[in-house]
């Protein structure tokens, strides 16, 4: 165990938590507001990544600039999927809802495979991707720093929207009691549509960031969806406010294990599964 690597592990873990929180908060929005477990969340992420790639290849757009295009497109895709499929299963058994979103995920993955093929696609010329700012023994990468900053802005903005705006208050109202919210005149379906669109938008922006970090493939969303589920479970299903803390816990735990334990990177998935297991056991123990 080389403790001289500890400061780098802490910095890398905190910076990674931003992207984790961004992807998880979208998933939590769908679960918390609409009450649907969206297994296609990772595919929104994947579409965001491929759109950033395509905008770079076709028009030379810098990926950061492409967020301005990808965000509204993903919102529309999410809203359209809600209006055409999800809303019809809201009263169906949970298993049907899960199967539907799982099926949507498979369709989106295969559409990506048809359009972009199975090869990883690299956004080649990103001049800032490999730049690190050296602070003593610690290197702070521009890309992780930038993705952390964007994530903080977006997640903070979402919290503010939920707390301060009429749309946000409407979302909290339908999340608490959809029938009651409907009875006082809120258009529940419209609120759901906006929430699902926002969920897709947040995942899509996460996808843009991953297109900078690695080379997207049709299955690129899987790893981040798994992290997002772990974070949502840690925070408590539907608890949007707990997402940031849970994301920091998961990212830091992974980074510390990966750095301080031999072959620790190969244990990353074990770390978050252990965190899920521990949380569920603790919660059930606390209830009894």
């Amino acid at each position, binding site marked *: 165990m080389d403790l001289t690597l500890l400061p780098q592990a802490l910095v890398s873990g905190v910076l990674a938590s931003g992207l984790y929180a961004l992807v998880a908060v979208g998933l939590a929005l769908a679960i918390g507001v609409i009450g649907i477990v969206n297994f296609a969340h990772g595919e929104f992420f994947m579409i965001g990544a491929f759109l950033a790639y395509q905008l770079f290849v076709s028009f030379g757009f810098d990926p950061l600039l492409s967020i301005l295009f990808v965000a509204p497109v993903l919102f529309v895709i999410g809203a359209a999927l809600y209006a055409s499929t999800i809303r019809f299963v809201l009263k169906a058994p949970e298993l049907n809802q899960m199967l539907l979103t799982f099926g949507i995920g498979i369709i989106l993955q295969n559409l990506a495979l048809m359009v972009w093929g*199975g090869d990883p696609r*690299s956004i080649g010329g990103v001049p800032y*991707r*490999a730049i690190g700012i050296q602070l003593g023994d610690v*290197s702070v990468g521009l890309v992780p720093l930038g993705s952390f900053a964007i994530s903080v802005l977006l997640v903070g903005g979402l919290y503010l929207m939920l707390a301060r705006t009429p749309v946000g208050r409407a979302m909290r109202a339908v999340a608490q009691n959809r029938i009651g919210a409907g009875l006082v005149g809120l258009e529940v379906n419209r609120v759901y549509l906006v929430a699902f669109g926002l969920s897709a938008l947040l995942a899509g922006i996460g996808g843009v960031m991953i297109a900078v970090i690695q080379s997207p493939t*049709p299955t690129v969303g899987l790893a981040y969806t798994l992290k997002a589920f772990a974070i949502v479970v840690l925070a408590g299903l539907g608890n949007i406010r707990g997402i940031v803390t849970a994301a920091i816990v998961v990212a830091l735990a992974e980074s510390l294990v990966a750095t301080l334990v031999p072959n620790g990177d190969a244990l990353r998935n074990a770390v978050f599964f252990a965190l899920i297991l521990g949380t569920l056991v603790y919660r059930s123990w606390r209830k009894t």
Partner: protein
Amino acid sequence: MKKLLAVLLAAVVGLGLAQEQVTIGILSPLTGGAAGTGLAQRAGFELALAEINAAGGVLGQPLRIIIEDDRADPATSVAAFEKLMTEDGVEFIAGGFASGATLALVESFRTFQPIVSWIGGASSGIGNDDFEGIEELLGEEEWFFHVHPWDYQNVEATFGFIEDLGVGSVALLHEDGAFGTPGAAGLEAGVEQMGIPVVLREAFTSTLTGGTGDFRATLSKVGAANPDMLYWIGYDSDAQPLSSQLKELGVAPAYVFGAPPGWPTGIEAAPEMECVMGLIGYLPNLPNPEAVAFANAYREMHGAYPDNYMAALAYAQLWSYADAINAAGTTDQAAVIEKLQTMTFRSPMGDWSFKPSVIAKHQGFGSDMWLVFQFQNGVREIVWPADRATAPLAACR
């Protein structure tokens, strides 16, 4: 009446002499995590098929291929193979990629015993007492022809390069699955046998198998170990994050060598790839006329130069079938096997033939297929072996 009998007789004789259209059944992963390889294979098969049929086909008829998606998945592969044998009635099998899927096919191959010319499935099993590999299980079968080099032939090429390079120490990173772990064990043993210390060996979760592409923790350990050479075994999508994070962290070994099955499309343009090296079976800038002809024809058909050597292997494999069946003049199994055994075929990688390897009776390409390339100014230059090099090797620091 005599005239009618004569016409009927002529028709019967004619039918007997007319050759049936030859169909080759192909298994390839067209979807799933290995789809990049499968789609490259398909592109190579399509080009070879067009050329073969433009040149007169096989036994005077247009050659036909049926490509089944095996998803690189054992169960899907067995179902797809049995469909080719029972529903489509093919006598020749081509394609193939994942070793796991190939192992699942062994019993089915033995049951039906068509001629199997197999690209992938490089796990020989030789040198591993706990595991029976494909060369051990199928190598002695008369009807089995293996195209891609075996795993020990891949390693042989790598050792040759490392020895020529004369590095002082090596750090070894590998993905933690069935691809990277045995490869790393073999490499570590071989490098240490050469007297070169392996100062670090670390496993990582590949982006293909659920990793997020954050390798900073592992790369920090490489920085602390300060090796002359970093050698990593992972998948295509690991290449970019590993290379960029290495530079971001300021970790700078003199040589960085990646060993993924392929490289992402467009990665040449990434500045952080400068100086990274890799092993590859085919590059469009190989200095032989077949390589150039293949690259140009491929570009004309598919709109881009081939960036995965599996396309070239698939192309060579289908041409070898067409040449062998045409030379045999029949689809009779013994006659075609005899031609496959004895003929020399042309390919984008140069002339090749099936020769015995350690166990296998029919091994196509060997360790001499491999080239070491280095990303230099956005181009993959061949830097080893010297007789095929297109540019001198550059150190990264």
